């Protein structure tokens, strides 16, 4: 009973929880529902009958029959006196404060009141502490800080970063970084969660204006698909706020999600079609550009034509683009950057499970007992999934990280397996050997739900642990420990990313993972499965909607006559029965003169493709090259026509995130200049080439067509996903979507999972005398892919403005390298110049680069050795040498 109102309550909740739920206001300053109560503001004092004095509501659990008073003369006096003390040490200038009128201290003061007379007697001049404005996105003003500790607890409990902590003690206590240095010099990841939660104006965002309205949409960076309320003012995006009700991100965002939208407003956005005339781009009218494109495309139909679609644009756009390629241009040669990231995942998991997507949902991670992250720099590339893993850790889960580098996630790992790049099959098979030798396998699962087990078991023989240790360099004790934990401490969930796929044996790696999951019965269950983390915001959707050379939308096979017939009937056109070419094969065929015209939407292969010099040479050979994009990328410079597209902020549609959740993307602002939606542009080209069935009025029209031809998307309707997205398969309008895959039966034909015998295949280019180091590639938290968007955000650029070669101190010493000096990195294919970062993150013999910086085109070094099954190039392993630059 609170204040005379009888309430039925759940055990385990606090008085403050219950009061808040029932609309009873108890003033508080240091409370946040996500955080462990700390009880330091002393505002939420209440009285409980039978208990002495006043107690704090935020920390006291409710009990049966409790009679609680939230108000009394005594309570008011205590609150007021405490509040006066806080005010005595708080900057008085509210009118110039960012938080004015949204400040929690103001709110509490309005409720509690202060006695100005006492307050004045308490106030005295205090030395002003200088603001910390070092972070490009926000400022810390100690003079407004009320020491509630929410920022500190958030940084620790939510973000696991602990960039901020309390420093010093007593009256001198401050929110401090290590060494009390500027925030920018700390380990702060600039996620901005502390800024959002600061109850007063002590942490406030820079360059952000209060929006006049907010619209919910989806983040355009990675595949997690965080839901964001974007703030809009004067047709500009001015703020971003995580959607607290989102099952995906629970209100949290990473630095790119929170601050990375600013590229939308960038002055370099393309606003008019450009046609190259005498080597120069000249602005043109839409009609002129579209007519020219149609004319040129008309002479290279069939196998002279190729499309590269985009994993950044919505499902609807991808659908239209593949339809155009197939129905109008008469070829299945359409591919996109998924080829360079998760092609082996699809190739591998379709063979073993029947479906290439994440088997589980993101929010299932928190309930896993073991999480095994292999080949994924999760906290940098998928920061919000990283948070889910950290939360699981806090709930007691064991975390196993397998990564050649000491990545950030290792801080949370119980076991770190530091395998040599390219030896994952050996590591995983070694673990499976332990599982089998120690009888830890799930025999029932294997018997009931899998096939080909006996063949697989034979292949395990060659992986005795001594061999595994020798090849992988992981001590066998660790392999054993990891195997036991994964096999026994269930539910076990496995996550992986590019570290598994980008190898010449990438499909084998994926099959090894699916073997391990089947062997231990760790798939097809809640919080237990195989989870490839998709990189781009809509790479899942681009695959789902058929921007692939071998499947129509919904993974329906190009070579299956009944499928072809179905689409011919629906699109009223004759279709090509042969699989098209893949991403890498397209460039080979361009170089050979076979493909004459390339239609490229929003990709940047000059930076992203392995052996990039090869790509440049190929692009020079094209007869006609159309690029459709939002910025003039490094690749667009090679184009004959550039068509200005709308960004995610200017269009309606859907993105499908890594957990197969189809979510609504909404138009937030008007496009710059004459930029147009991708689907509109493609339709205009199609219509000029005589295509029929391209008369859509809205993105929703396209989704309605998708529903009809794509069984897994059959029931995904805009009105159903207005609030929360649906996870495919969702075959009809009554289907609730699918939280995790392969429950009871695998989606593979016959319903059984399949084991695959495997052997160790070394990476194609191993280090030798001339090129003694292994180069592996990685991602930075602050940038995305080739940084077309992220480097156009000033703050992101300032947090990470140049490429750094990560190199182990022992390797650096051998070459007498200094930290931060420029060196040359050479492979058999190219040379780049880059500064060093000497660090233990890389083991001896392995160096690492990202590919975010056009000044340091890392992919000019990488090797285009192709996985025979999935055609992915081996961007994770090549041999290089580092040379000191002679400055004389």
């Amino acid at each position, binding site marked *: 009973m609170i204040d005379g109102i009888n309430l039925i309550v759940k055990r385990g909740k606090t008085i403050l929880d219950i009061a808040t739920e029932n609309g009873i206001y108890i003033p508080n300053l240091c409370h946040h529902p996500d955080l462990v109560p700390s009880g330091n503001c002393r505002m939420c004092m209440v009285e409980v009958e039978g208990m002495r004095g006043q107690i704090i509501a935020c920390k006291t659990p409710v009990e049966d029959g409790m009679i609680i008073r939230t108000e009394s003369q005594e309570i008011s006096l205590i609150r007021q006196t405490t509040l006066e003390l806080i005010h005595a040490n708080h900057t008085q200038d509210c009118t110039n404060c960012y938080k004015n009128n949204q400040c929690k201290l103001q709110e509490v003061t309005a409720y509690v009141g202060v006695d100005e007379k006492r307050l004045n007697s308490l106030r005295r001049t205090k030395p002003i502490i200088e603001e910390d404005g070092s972070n490009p996105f926000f400022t810390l003003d100690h003079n407004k800080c009320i020491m509630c500790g929410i920022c500190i607890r958030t940084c620790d409990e939510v973000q696991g*970063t*602990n*960039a*901020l*902590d*309390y*420093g*010093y*003690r007593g009256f001198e206590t401050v929110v*401090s*970084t*290590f*060494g*009390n240095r500027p925030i920018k010099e*700390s*380990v702060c990841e600039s996620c901005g969660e502390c800024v959002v939660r600061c109850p007063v104006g002590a942490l406030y965002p820079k360059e952000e204006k209060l929006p006049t309205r907010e619209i919910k949409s989806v983040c355009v960076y990675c595949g997690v698909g965080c839901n964001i309320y974007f703030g809009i003012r004067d047709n500009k995006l001015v703020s971003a706020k995580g959607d607290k009700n989102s099952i995906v991100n629970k209100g949290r965002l990473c630095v790119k999600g929170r601050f990375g939208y600013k590229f939308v407003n960038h002055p370099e956005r393309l606003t008019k079609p450009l046609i190259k005339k005498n080597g120069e781009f000249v602005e043109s009218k839409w009609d002129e550009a579209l007519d020219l494109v149609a004319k040129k495309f008309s002479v290279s139909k069939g196998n002279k034509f190729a499309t590269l679609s985009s994993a950044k644009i919505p499902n609807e756009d991808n659908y239209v683009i593949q339809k155009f390629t197939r129905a109008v241009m008469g070829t299945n040669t359409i591919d996109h950057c998924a080829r360079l990231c998760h092609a082996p995942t699809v190739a591998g998991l379709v063979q073993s499970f029947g479906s290439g997507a994440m088997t589980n949902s993101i929010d299932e991670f928190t309930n896993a007992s073991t999480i095994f992250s292999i080949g994924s720099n999760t906290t940098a590339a998928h920061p919000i999934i990283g948070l889910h893993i950290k939360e699981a850790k806090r709930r007691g889960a064991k975390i196993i990280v397998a990564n050649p580098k000491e990545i950030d996630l290792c*801080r949370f790992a119980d076991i770190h397996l530091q395998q040599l790049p390219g030896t994952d099959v050996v590591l995983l098979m070694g673990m499976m050997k332990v599982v089998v030798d120690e009888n830890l396998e799930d025999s029932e699962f294997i018997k009931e739900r899998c096939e080909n087990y006996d063949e697989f078991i034979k292949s395990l023989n060659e992986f005795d642990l001594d061999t595994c240790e020798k090849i992988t360099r992981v001590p066998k004790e660790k392999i054993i420990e990891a195997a036991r934990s994964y096999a026994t401490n269930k539910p076990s969930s496995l996550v992986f990313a590019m570290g598994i796929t980008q190898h010449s044996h990438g499909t084998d790696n994926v099959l090894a993972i699916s073997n391990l999951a089947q062997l231990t019965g760790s798939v097809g269950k809640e919080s237990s499965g195989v989870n490839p983390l998709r990189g781009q915001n809509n790479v899942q959707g681009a695959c789902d909607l058929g921007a692939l050379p071998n499947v129509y939308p919904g993974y329906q096979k190009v070579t299956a006559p009944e499928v072809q017939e179905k689409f011919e009937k629906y699109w009223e056109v004759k279709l090509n029965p042969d699989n098209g070419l893949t991403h890498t094969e397209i460039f080979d065929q361009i170089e050979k003169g076979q493909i004459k015209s390339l239609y490229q939407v929003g990709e940047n292969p000059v930076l992203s493709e392995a052996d990039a010099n090869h790509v440049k040479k190929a692009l020079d050979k094209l007869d006609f090259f159309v690029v459709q994009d939002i910025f003039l990328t490094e690749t667009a410079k090679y184009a004959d026509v550039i068509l200005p597209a709308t960004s995610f902020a200017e269009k309606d549609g859907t993105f499908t995130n890594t957990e197969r959740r189809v979510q609504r993307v909404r138009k937030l602002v008007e496009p710059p200049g004459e930029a147009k939606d991708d689907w509109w542009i493609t339709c205009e080209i199609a219509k000029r080439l005589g295509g029929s069935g391209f008369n859509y009025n809205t993105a929703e029209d396209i989704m309605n067509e998708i529903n009809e031809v794509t069984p897994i998307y059959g029931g995904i309707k805009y009105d159903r996903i207005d609030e929360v997205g649906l996870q495919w398969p969702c075959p009809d309008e009554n289907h609730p979507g699918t939280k995790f895959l392969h429950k009871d039966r695998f989606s593979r034909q016959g319903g059984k999972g399949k084991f695959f015998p495997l052997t160790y295949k070394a990476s194609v280019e191993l280090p030798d005398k001339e090129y003694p180091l292994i180069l592996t590639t990685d991602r930075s938290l602050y940038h995305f892919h080739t940084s077309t968007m992220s480097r156009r955000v000033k703050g992101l650029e300032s947090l990470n403005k140049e490429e750094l070669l990560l190199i182990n101190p022992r390797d650096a010493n051998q070459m007498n390298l200094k930290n931060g000096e420029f060196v040359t990195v050479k492979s058999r294919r190219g040379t780049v110049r880059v500064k060093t970062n000497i660090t233990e993150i890389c083991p001896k013999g392995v160096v690492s680069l990202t590919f975010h910086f056009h000044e340091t085109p890392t992919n000019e070094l990488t090797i285009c050795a192709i996985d025979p099954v999935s055609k992915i190039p081996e961007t994770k392993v090549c041999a290089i040498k580092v040379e000191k630059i002679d400055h004389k």
Partner: protein
Amino acid sequence: MERSEILKQFEPANENMLNILHALQNNNSQNYLSEEDIKIAANYLNTTYSHIYGVVTYYTMFSLKPRGKYIIRVCNSPVCNMENSTKVIEEIKRFLSIEVGETTDDKRFTLELSECLGRCGKAPGMMINEDVIGNLDNVDFKSIFENYN
């Protein structure tokens, strides 16, 4: 001693945090915890730098500034204060020509104040490193400090 040798004496468990910091500080020739010391302790204990920074700045026995070979801790608690510790402090300041918190130019002495050292029976008292010296109201500081070289 190498820092790694010191760390080896302790299990990497939280309850050893303060013992480890003491050991690293004692091992530091300048009697303080350098940023390197903190980083190494943090890595060993699998915690963050800022967490240990918070710990180090909380406890008065740890210093982030280099200190002298000998740390003089004069008790300034109520009993010693009543027995004129203020005068003792002034005399030491004059004798060593340093303020509280400072280190003599020859890096021999650092003067600090301390809360009750549990020597109230012999107030006013102080410690010089591990030695306790009481009844300071009428002593010749010269003869005391001479013993510390």
